[in-house]
């Protein structure tokens, strides 16, 4: 049984995503929308991370022996300005996508466990992660041409 390992992984992913959204909100206050939306999306990740607790009590938690792979390569120092905004949105997308596949895989396990509460939690969190990714795609696709051509 390695459900505990994936729970720990996804909780760590969401906690990092929560922090990353907050960092980006702080760095890009000069944009008309970034602070508000990133603060909101950060709160969603906080809620998703918190939702793992009751399942950790039930299924345990297991520390992953592999070193943390993704986050250390992202967000190297504070970045500001147009290109930095695009890079930050890009990095957030990578992190959110990583969280999404983890929720998808946990959702598979939840079905095999016939745990209705767990199934529903994975579905809801997957949907929230999808909304985060959709926003990141909308915002970065809008920013890319100006950043890469005119800036």
């Amino acid at each position, binding site marked *: 049984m390695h459900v505990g390992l994936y729970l720990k992984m996804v909780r760590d992913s969401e906690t990092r995503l929560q922090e990353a959204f907050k960092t980006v909100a702080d760095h890009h206050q*000069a*944009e*008309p*929308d970034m*602070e*508000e*939306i990133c*603060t*909101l*999306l950060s709160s969603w990740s906080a809620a998703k991370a918190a939702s793992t607790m009751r399942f950790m009590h039930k299924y345990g938690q297991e520390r992953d022996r592999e070193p943390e792979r993704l986050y250390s390569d992202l967000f190297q120092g504070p970045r500001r*300005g*147009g290109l930095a905004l695009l890079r930050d949105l890009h990095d957030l997308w990578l992190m959110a996508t990583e969280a999404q596949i983890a929720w998808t895989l946990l959702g598979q396990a939840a079905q095999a466990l016939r745990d209705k509460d767990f199934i529903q939690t994975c579905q809801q969190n997957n949907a929230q992660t999808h*909304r*985060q990714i*959709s*926003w990141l*795609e*909308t915002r970065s*696709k*809008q920013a890319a*041409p*100006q*950043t890469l*051509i*005119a*800036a």
Partner: protein
Amino acid sequence: MPEAPWKGTRMGQSRDSIADVWGPRAPYDKDWPVRVDEHTSEQPDRWVQSACVLCSNGCALDIGVKDGTIVGVRGRADDRVNHGRLGPKGLHGWQANHHRERLTTPLVRRGDVFREASWDEAMDLIVRRSQDIRDRHTSSAIGFYTSGQLFLEEYYTLAVIGKAGLGTPHMDGNTRLCTATAAAALKESFGTDGQPGSYTDLDTTDAVFDIGHNMAEQQTVLWMRVLDRRRGPRPPKLVIIDPRPIPSALEADVHLAPKPGTNVPVLNGLLHLIIEHGWIDRGFIDAHTIGFDRLEQTVSKWTPEAVERVADVPIPQLRAAADILGTANTLVSTVLQGVYQSMQATAAACQVNNLHLIRGLIGREGCGIYQMNGQPTAQNTRETGADGDLPGFRNWSNPQHIEELARLWNVSPDIIPHWAPPTHAMQIFRYCEQGSIKMLWVSATNPAVSLPDLPRIRKILDDEHVFLVVQDAFMTETASRADVVLPTALWGEKTGCFTNVDRTVHLSHKAVDPPGQAKSDLDIWLDYAKRMDFRDKDGASLIKWTTSEAAFEAWKACSKGRPCDYSGLSYAKLTGGSGIQWPCNDRFPDGATHLYTDGRFNTDADYNESNGHDLDTGAQITPKEYRAMNPAGRAIIKAADYIPPYERPDKEYPLWLTTGRIVYHFHTRTKTGRAPALKAQARDSFVEMSQEDAAAYGIQEGQMVEVRSRRGYARAPARITGIKRGVLFMPFHYGYWDDNRRPRAANEVTLPEWDPVSKQPHFKFSAVRIRAV
């Protein structure tokens, strides 16, 4: 149509609209009596057909002309919109046309001063800079910020120049500040823009629901219609939601005064009560909508107790409002800036649409939703794509729609920017700030007073790296910062069409010549297109028209087959008689009073204007996701839960500030501030506050007060009223062109953040502190 016993044909004033804004009552049911309002300074030689441009109501009027000068106006008795009536701004605003401060010659900046220039010199400079910037940085370094004040023909010409000439995605209107949420909410719910109902719905409706729309002061003539019904034999019930004791709130059967930023909880609470009582039309919901279950689930937690806790609306009042809205057999709802410029703007506006959808109150007489416009021609900015839309309510993410435009203009589809939605105003200014937009062309709007966070906007406009072109009739606070100023003709000095909130198209004929060398905005842009030598793919001129009538004909072709179909209209048909509603085509040769009469909406994936958004984040729904939803002609019920405002009062800034309009002025008073009677009646700004707050801060009526936020401060005399405790109000009209002795613009203080879907800034709340000075 019955006639009033007197008609305003004599010289002078038919009524004193300054002292008595709405005039005498004409009680009625069904047929609104005529009353011709008139104000002239001399007996006119002739009358020229037009309509009023000092709010979005679209009142038809005739311009009185004597010896080549405008000498007055009178309402047109046979028009469907106003039945002869005019409000104080309409009756007096024309006086600005011959004000001595009109700009009469192009101006070019040299250092700190302007010098007069010829049109050739000014336009050559603009063209040289355009070409240079385009060559070095692409067209993405050029932006346009236009208005809700020009004519349809002008917007359409500008849209074609921007989208098929230069190919820049950066074009928006000040409609972003006023009506972007109206368009956004209509698209989210019904698939495209377009008001479902008509003003005539007020003639028969059982109830009027007004949220965040100070109708009595903004659409004075529409309010006369409501008042006349209210005094008639079968008065409609009236529910008002507004934090201030505005005139309509005093008239209302139920007045709810929620805390700023809580429209969604209040509306969810009303929807919850209506669903709970079973006051819904199950048959309509099942046949003509999708998304009801989600709405029912979302609003279920918004019990009256929960609403009271969050919004400070007493439980009995919420129930009383729900009783009216839930049981009326016909209902007119009207929505404006109290929703559009507040938290969760699009989400809240959609809940008003939902109210009509779940009760089946749409597409028939007496059932109107006015997702209001603030400006007279804002509807045309949206229709023609001179804002963040594409012409003819086309969908930028639908390749077929881009192909249609390319065929129409005979250009390659590649030139039309459609990789993302057109850039929104606040983003355009952000790109200017960052230096990636190097030329900004502002027409008929005054961002140096009207945009939020003015200290920042001034810095952007003053930045020497942005080549700023301003075309206006007066030296506004924005024009005074320009590199080139182009003097324009005003209303009455040029011919063109515009369309009001209820889709009524009016033709405004030229009555007099513009002063000096001033030109119409249309002629300026036609000249620019010629000098830039924009071509179609066969080498012919891209812009194939040289007159406003020919531009209108081109627009008709563009609109044909789309919801805003003008193909059955012509200048001849619009001359004489009443304005005519779109769609006007073979099927509706006299226009249509209601859209969606058969319960079929514009949500088909091949026809819609937008696939919609996540109301909380603004994330776009992809074409694939939209097709999976398969609305296929059904309206989309979109639910939203409450998100608290991001800036809330705290220890340091303990009060809310909200901003808005007053009856005697329009926008930054470029015209109304130059009409003597209007100016005299409302000379200066003020800070409205409750008696409790005034007492707490030791402030007396009339005392100068400083309002300070994290962004800046403004000062104005105190006005003590019955406004909600903890909430201050300032009008946004006052800037600096006639008085720069103190910071007095409300937007010194306001927030630059926006609604995630409509990108409309949040003027309706910011956290502030006050002190007497």
